[in-house]
């Protein structure tokens, strides 16, 4: 099947999902991001790469954090940035996603950064946009959050350069997590030999092992000798109901504490995509502890998004 993310020369045209991207492209993004980290430390934190281009952040689902990092990234590339929060109310007036996209295309936007609550929204937009427009998926439903997956890989590579020799555990609500899906695909594509998921059965998708992961339901077994611990956020509304009895019980069984972390390798790093629920999925002592790389993750997010945007913007068909 034709991969809608690549152009006819096999270059990255849209970033919609990590799944299906060749390892070389992931490495190109990570290497380019490495070059951009220096830019943020200079006197002038800008490069002229996207001068004259318009990047449009269309957020059908609110997320100030993610939108801000994309905005900073675009501005450091000298692009003009347009932010659009499409509230659900204006959608219910009958304007469809594609109407919104058409309107912005008419204003000569060159790139759309899209966040939507429905899986597949970014694919739909990418199928529909004019040939010169690039689409970056900033999170679609439960499907994918590829830039988060990439910045997590960037972080891991900084601390554990030999990806071929790692054991990684992803812990928490995999079922509803676009971050988890992107992380799993990124890790397996980059050649990490052992990826584990640890969660109760109610928070795992059916057939999740077909994504190339080993399934654990017990933190103590799952954390044993891992190099990287990747926590997932648990949404408030899922903490008590038919998925889980309570946040307390969840923390007891699947929350990351110093004591459980001690089962991982001594130099294991701890990651979280944020925002954290302290005392629900992660203990504060761990979140703020020596092994936590949660803040560097945020920093690297900008360089990774700069890399993605500049690679996409430079992949126009001749």
């Amino acid at each position, binding site marked *: 099947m034709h991969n809608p993310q690549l152009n006819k020369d096999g270059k990255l045209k849209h970033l919609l999902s990590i799944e299906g991207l060749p390892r070389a492209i992931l490495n190109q993004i990570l290497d380019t991001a490495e*070059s951009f*980290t*220096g*830019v943020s430390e200079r*006197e*002038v934190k800008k490069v002229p*790469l996207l001068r004259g281009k318009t990047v449009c952040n269309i957020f059908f689902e609110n997320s100030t954090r993610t939108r801000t990092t994309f905005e900073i990234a675009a501005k450091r590339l000298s692009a003009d940035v347009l932010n659009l929060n499409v509230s659900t109310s204006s959608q219910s007036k009958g304007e469809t996603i594609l109407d919104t996209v058409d309107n912005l295309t008419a204003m000569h936007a060159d790139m759309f950064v899209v966040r939507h609550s429905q899986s597949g929204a970014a694919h739909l937009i990418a199928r529909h946009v004019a040939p010169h427009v690039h689409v970056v998926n900033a999170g679609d439903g439960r499907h994918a959050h590829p830039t988060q997956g990439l910045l997590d890989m960037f972080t891991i590579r900084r601390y554990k350069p030999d990806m071929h020799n790692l054991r990684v555990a992803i812990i928490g609500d995999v079922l509803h997590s676009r971050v988890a899906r992107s992380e799993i695909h990124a890790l397996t594509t980059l050649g990490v030999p052992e990826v584990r998921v640890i969660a109760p059965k109610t928070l795992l998708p059916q057939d999740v092992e077909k994504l190339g992961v080993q399934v654990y339901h017990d933190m103590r077994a799952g954390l044993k000798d891992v190099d990287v611990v990747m926590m997932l956020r648990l949404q408030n509304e899922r903490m008590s109901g038919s998925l889980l009895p309570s946040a307390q019980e969840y923390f007891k069984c699947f929350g990351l504490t110093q004591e459980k972390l001690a089962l991982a390798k001594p130099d294991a790093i701890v990651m979280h995509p944020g925002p954290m629920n302290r005392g629900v999925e992660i203990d504060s002592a761990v979140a703020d502890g020596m092994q936590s790389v949660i803040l560097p993750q945020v920093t690297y997010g900008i360089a990774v998004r700069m890399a993605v945007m*500049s*690679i996409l913007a430079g992949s126009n068909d001749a």
Partner: protein
Amino acid sequence: MTTPLPEAEQLLTRLAEQLRPVITPATALVGIHSGGVWIMQRLLKLLDMPLAHGTLDVSFYRDDFNQRGLKPTTRPSQIPFEVEARHIILIDDVFYTGRTIRAAMNELFDYGRPANISLAVLVNRGGRELPIAPQFSACELPLPADKNLQLLQHEDGRFYLRLDDQA
């Protein structure tokens, strides 16, 4: 081409001798990836002076980004010294259109305001498209536009030049 290409190692020595007189404690060498960085490293050895130095990858400043996109590999630029008021010698292997040098100067200015910038190259092949020219070049070798001149390294690290037909 029947005339043999100049010996790159000889050009390197010649360039070092050209630069030696102008170097002061305020001088910094900046090599442009990748040929310029190789030359800079050899110059540092030949000159045998404790000079400030750095590297530039001008990918993010190129004027052909819209046509050609980003190179598959970029390396971080590293300017580990204060650019402000510095005498900077930019170093590249082959001088051609001058566009790379423009990009490099733009990038340098994003680090600070140098006192002056000069340009040193191994070969000036002619064909500039901008009002930029090298102050120091070890060799003038005018070439037609359909030729591509490249600096390469032997396995033992010695330099040599190669001339190809433009792809």
